[in-house]
């Protein structure tokens, strides 16, 4: 019952949006208003039809993209958490490298992506780098904020209970920072999908971004949207699994 109650509203909303789109597209209203050929404005029904017809092609490419996302996100998670811990433990390091970390986020990914492809080739390398670069920032910054938001009285209390620096870190600071780290991870996973597409657009042999680029060139708008749907589904699935993990880990909340 509670699962139904939780999932019903968003599902209803999506169905309603698709319904509106379906009516607008199949009645020719959208194509007419935009002054376009019908095939350029596919209806959801057509999109799902193409998705089913080309299911092996799409799922094949989706797998490639999903692997890139998971791998890139994992790299960002490890590096982001480590960076946050280091920056928290060392004032000097934080003051020195915080501007660099902020700078890393100002790199225009669209511009840097082709360069990375030139450097690292058409393989998974540049995609990993781009996704990790995008994901790193929210994870590191959120986790660092979490570590720094520790209750000063709790630290004092631990100091009077024989705690070493490491024990304070382990028993007070890490648990305090965990909810922040999860927020960062959720933001990161949502943007990771965009990173993957940028990476594939810059140069790739496979992946949903690669497929989109082809479909766009061939005016296969219906399959383009099919890829977009699948990409969204991947992002939502990843987001939901982090949420699930969060509820498991943060039981005390």
């Amino acid at each position, binding site marked *: 019952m509670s699962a139904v109650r939780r999932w019903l509203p968003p599902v209803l909303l999506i169905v309603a949006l698709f319904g509106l789109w379906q009516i607008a597209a199949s009645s020719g209203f959208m194509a007419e208003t935009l002054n376009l050929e019908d095939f350029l404005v596919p209806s959801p029904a057509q999109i799902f039809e193409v998705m089913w017809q080309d299911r092996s092609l799409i799922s094949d490419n989706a797998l490639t993209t999903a692997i890139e996302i998971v791998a890139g996100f994992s790299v960002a998670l490890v590096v982001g958490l*480590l960076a946050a811990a*280091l920056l928290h*433990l*060392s004032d000097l*390091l934080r003051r020195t490298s915080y501007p660099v970390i902020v700078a890393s986020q100002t790199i225009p990914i669209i511009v840097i992506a082709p360069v990375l492809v030139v450097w690292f*080739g058409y393989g998974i390398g540049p995609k990993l780098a781009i996704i990790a670069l995008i994901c790193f920032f929210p994870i590191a910054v959120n986790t660092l904020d979490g570590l720094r938001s520790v*209750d000063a*009285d*709790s630290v*004092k*209390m*631990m*100091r*009077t*209970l*024989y*705690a*070493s*620096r*490491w*024990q304070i870190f382990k*028993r*007070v600071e890490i*648990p305090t920072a965990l909810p922040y780290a999860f927020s960062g991870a959720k933001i990161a996973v949502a943007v990771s999908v965009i990173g993957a597409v940028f990476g594939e657009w810059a140069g790739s042999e496979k992946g949903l971004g690669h497929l989109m680029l082809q479909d766009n060139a061939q005016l296969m708008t219906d399959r383009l949207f099919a890829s977009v749907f699948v990409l969204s589904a991947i992002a939502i699935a990843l987001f939901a699994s982090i949420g699930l993990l969060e509820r498991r880990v943060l039981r*005390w*909340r």
Partner: protein
Amino acid sequence: MEKSKKALLGEENVGAGAFFEALLTLLTYIVRMSGIRKNTHCANGRIGHERIASGCLDLTLMTATLSGRGIGHLFGSLTALDGLDLEVGDGRILAIVGPSGCGKSTLLELICGLQEPTTGEIEVGGRSDAPGRLELCAYMPQSDCLLPWYSAIDNAGLALRNLGYSRPKARAESAELFERFGLKDFEDSHPSELSGGMRQRVAFLRTLLSKKDVLLLDEPFAALDAITRAELQEWLLPAMLAEGRTVVLVTHDVEEALYLGDQIAVMSPRPGRFTQLLDCPGHTGRPRSEVVTAPEFTTMRERILGHLTHAPEITVKAGS
């Protein structure tokens, strides 16, 4: 072409491996460095381990005397404490009352060794350095500071865990106290599931379980309602008397100070000084409701209250 690319990739991998290795080395180095640096401030953790490691950790109880001479403390240009002298004997309970902001909490932090006073000297059980005092003093902060991610019993046993006890061992030892102090069946409750009074009890057990000679209690019941506070005072008194440790209790509640203390020290508003030292009526073992309504008790309470609320005289002129 293919070959050269592979060679390049191979080299890259070596590069990446070396890079991560370097990162890891750097990481352990920084953690170690910051650990050492921070430990100069909180060396007690290290000492705790050394006590365990050398096998000479003696957890049998010893009380300690506490004395301070000319304790003064500045926050920037603000004088928080101004030349306090105090002396608490073995197993005695000193209650300090004073108005808000008179530096009572600061005084406890100084005694505890969380900071050094700007001037003067504090000695606890023969140790006058901050790490030494920290080793001997247990501190119960104003807010209970229970960690929400641990159950009540794991919170209570934090000191034992920090000393290297395994979780089952720490739990077993804490469980005894839970039973003795009326917290049985609440072992696995999380702090959010406990009432304010229960939380304070757990916080007190956590302080007791650090097995230190001196207990410093910072307004332990300030956040509780009057009924729960009275209930907890009645609970705390026999607990303190049975443990026989030296206690400094800070409060702004005169009744609480008189009921729980052997002696009561009255502090002036900032800059904090002791203005009075009195003997409390003493612990008779009679119910609290009787004790606090006895004429001797109420007279003392009124006298101290009068002393605390004594304000500079002002003249009020009616406008003409």
